[in-house]
């Protein structure tokens, strides 16, 4: 579009690689950013985008590869070095200082100084206000960050990057928590930045956003660069095929089953500020997907059903009898299992062994006279490691030594060992390599064929479409759509998930 052909690229990253222990997070990270251009970096979760971002941020030091800034090789020894070189990052999750004010968060470490190197608060707050005006938002610079909503925190992050006059601006899913109006505003800002000659790198899972604000696309898969092209020369279908890299069939083995009786009945479930009046059922032998955007309240619904969080209204009936509010133990006893979203924090005790993690939800059944039978524990771990084809060294090894996919299998094994009747699984394949992904899907398919009920939360549309018998869509805490497997299309689901935002984005 506005790319000046005379100017060379602002930033070139070529063949960057980074491994963490046995896990290669990035094999060939390559991207070229031009001034005045917004460049979309696309790929599935686990494709290595975040690692690439962290290399640009100076957080990770690449094992190999080269980074050129305005044609000259640079080495980022730390985040400060990257920042000083004019590379600003806006992370997926805003990480503000809750106890500092908005203005301080923007300028921390480089506050405007007055006489005798004192911080000039008035100037700082003025500058912050000026940036917000540029962004078209009104936010009190003196407010504590603690008192901000997630969307506002994101805006502060953007303001921080703007205040740095960054020549390279990397945005890692900045729109995930924003409303449509805020997204529009952000695009205006990106346009302004481009006009000023900045290079923008933009990561998003919403392709329509990419088409409405980016000039160039780079696709990554399994830690490697796949393809780069101007946006006009590539279609959505082509992008998706490049991202997934194989046919949907092999990724999503799906046996058509005849669902049985209703096992879970959620009626008018409400949690103040999170979701409202959510009602649905799950039957034996079916996978029900809970789709929607990040932050729509899907995980919160799952947590409330399982009882990790208390709900404020409505009921959860399982097998005809009501589950007590906020009591995971009762839910477990009744036959409910929850594989949570955050594997490393919620799913596993990372420093415990594989065997101990698998046994953690079955400690009492594994005990006699109050003592854990080590042999039964080992047997349980052996059994499920075998059935789930876990790749491991020794069962006593800490789970932190496993790859993401194998960690997920340990979480699955932990719950399947309890022979649950309903499996709630939140983002079953987030951060898992493609091969193991297909394995996890095959496992789920097998479970459902054997009559288990599965409630699956997923942000990946292909997964939803490929695996679900029924799709429920949640938007801003409310159910906005229900589709059968035959009805469901990505268009319908996205529309139900975004409604307002798709309309406006199209306009």
């Amino acid at each position, binding site marked *: 579009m506005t790319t000046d052909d005379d100017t060379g690229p602002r930033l070139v990253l070529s063949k960057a690689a980074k491994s963490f222990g046995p*896990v290669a997070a990035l094999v060939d990270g390559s991207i070229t950013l031009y001034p005045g251009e917004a460049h979309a970096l696309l790929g599935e979760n686990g494709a290595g985008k975040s690692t690439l971002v962290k290399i640009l941020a100076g957080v990770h030091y690449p094992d190999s590869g080269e980074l050129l800034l305005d044609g000259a090789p640079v080495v980022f020894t730390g985040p400060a070095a990257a920042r000083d070189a004019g590379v600003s990052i806006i992370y997926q999750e805003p990480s503000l200082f809750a106890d500092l004010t908005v203005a301080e968060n923007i300028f921390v470490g480089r506050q405007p100084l007055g006489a005798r190197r004192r911080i000039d608060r008035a100037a700082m707050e003025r500058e912050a206000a000026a940036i917000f005006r540029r962004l078209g938002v009104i936010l009190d610079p003196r407010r504590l960050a603690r008192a901000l909503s997630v969307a506002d925190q994101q805006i502060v992050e953007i303001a921080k990057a703007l205040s740095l006059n960054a020549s390279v601006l990397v945005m890692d899913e900045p729109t995930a928590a924003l409303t449509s109006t805020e997204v529009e505003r952000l695009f205006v800002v990106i346009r302004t930045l481009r006009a000023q000659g900045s290079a923008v790198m933009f990561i998003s899972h919403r392709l329509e956003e990419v088409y409405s604000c980016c000039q160039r696309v780079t696709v990554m898969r399994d830690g490697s660069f796949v393809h780069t092209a101007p946006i006009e020369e590539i279609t959505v279908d082509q992008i998706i095929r490049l991202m997934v890299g194989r046919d949907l069939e092999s990724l999503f083995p799906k046996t058509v089953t005849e669902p049985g009786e209703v096992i879970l009945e959620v009626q008018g479930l409400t949690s103040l500020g999170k979701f409202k009046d959510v009602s649905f059922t799950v039957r034996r032998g079916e996978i029900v997907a809970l789709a929607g955007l990040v932050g729509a309240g899907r995980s919160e619904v799952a947590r409330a059903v399982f009882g990790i969080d208390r709900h404020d209204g409505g009921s959860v009936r399982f097998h005809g009898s009501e589950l007590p509010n906020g009591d995971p133990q009762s839910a477990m006893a009744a036959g409910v299992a929850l594989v949570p979203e955050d594997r490393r924090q919620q799913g596993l005790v990372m420093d415990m062994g594989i065997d101990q993690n698998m*046994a953690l939800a079955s400690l009492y059944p594994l005990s006699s006279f109050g003592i854990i039978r080590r042999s039964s524990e080992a047997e349980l771990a052996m059994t499920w490691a075998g059935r789930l084809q876990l790749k491991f060294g020794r069962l*006593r090894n800490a789970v932190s030594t496993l*790859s993401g996919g194998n960690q997920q299998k340990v979480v699955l094994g932990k719950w399947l060992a309890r022979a649950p009747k309903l499996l709630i699984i939140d983002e079953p394949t987030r951060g898992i390599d493609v091969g193991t992904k297909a394995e996890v899907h095959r496992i789920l398919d097998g479970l459902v064929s054997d009559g288990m009920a599965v409630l699956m939360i997923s942000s990946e549309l292909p997964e939803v479409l490929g695996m679900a018998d029924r799709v429920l869509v949640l938007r801003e805490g409310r159910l906005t759509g229900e589709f059968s497997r035959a009805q469901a299309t990505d268009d319908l689901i996205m529309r139900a998930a975004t409604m307002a935002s798709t309309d406006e984005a199209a306009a």
Partner: protein
Amino acid sequence: MSDVMTPTPPKVDAPAADSGARRLWSGVARWETGLLVVLFGVLIFGAAESSVFLTSSTLFFMGINIGYIAIMALPMTFVVMTGEIDLSVASMLGLSGAVVGDLWHHGWGIWPAFGVALLVGLAGGALNGLLVARFGLPSIAVTIGTLTLFRGLAEILLGSVTVPGIGDRLFPVSLTNIGVLPVGGTELSWSLLIFLILAMVFGVVLHATPLGRSMVAIGLQPEAAEFAGIRVTRIKFGLFVLSGLLSAFAGILLTLQNSSVSYNAGVGLELNVVAIALFGGVSIFGGRGTILGVVLSVAIIGSLQMALTQMQVQPEKQNIITGILLLLSVVIPNGGEVIGRLRARVRRGRSRSAA
């Protein structure tokens, strides 16, 4: 993610994958082995420096000196295991004694007085547990608060008097003998014997029961424990109650040992109790530690104290040694990591200058 070209993930490189867990295990094993070596060192040192060290009375007086403190170190181990801390133990010990003294002074029988003291221990522990586990307040701040509160209550009960004072009945000799005489046929003090029995129970609970495993999980990753259906709140609450109860019990033992009570018995001992647990290899961040380590820690600190006392080293110097031991216990496990980090920094600096 480790293999990109082929669809099946590779078998994880066994030695590399093993290293994390093995490091953890051998780290634990090494710590206890290290303590054992230190213990032998202390025993040899004591025998060499003091002619009376290798006599049975050393064992008895060691029990008198450290037994009641060691008893409090057991529930402290559990509490620290779950990532919390209880700094109110020594004040509860004092309060328990004060309750006994006050009731005795007012003509109660000794057994009912003990009963009430134990109930006070339960209640105090429940207060800590309520504030920490139920309301989610930081345990370090809460228990500094109850430390002040319990000691204050002891002060209100007894004031500056000592019970039994002039005009009071003396405590029954049959009971105070428990405090000053060894267990029949042995040279163990009652407090040390009780500690050893309790240690066995605590060891089994920590290392072989669902409760113990749950405590480890809570200490390592509280959220994951909750998602696995472990009753985090209830367990933490219970542990604070247990800590209060055993501290009150230790207070009764100390009362018998001294044959009298004053409100300031055991002031400042909370830090000794914490030190015993940490020196025994219990991680202040929770989730790591063994009862064996704590028992060895008691043995080392106790026998070192005896040796130094017999050598007529001032108690202040003994403080220095306790402090250094404590410091070493946290610095040594970190040493390897620190060196690794420094090396990495040097390496990076080199490659930077090369680039």
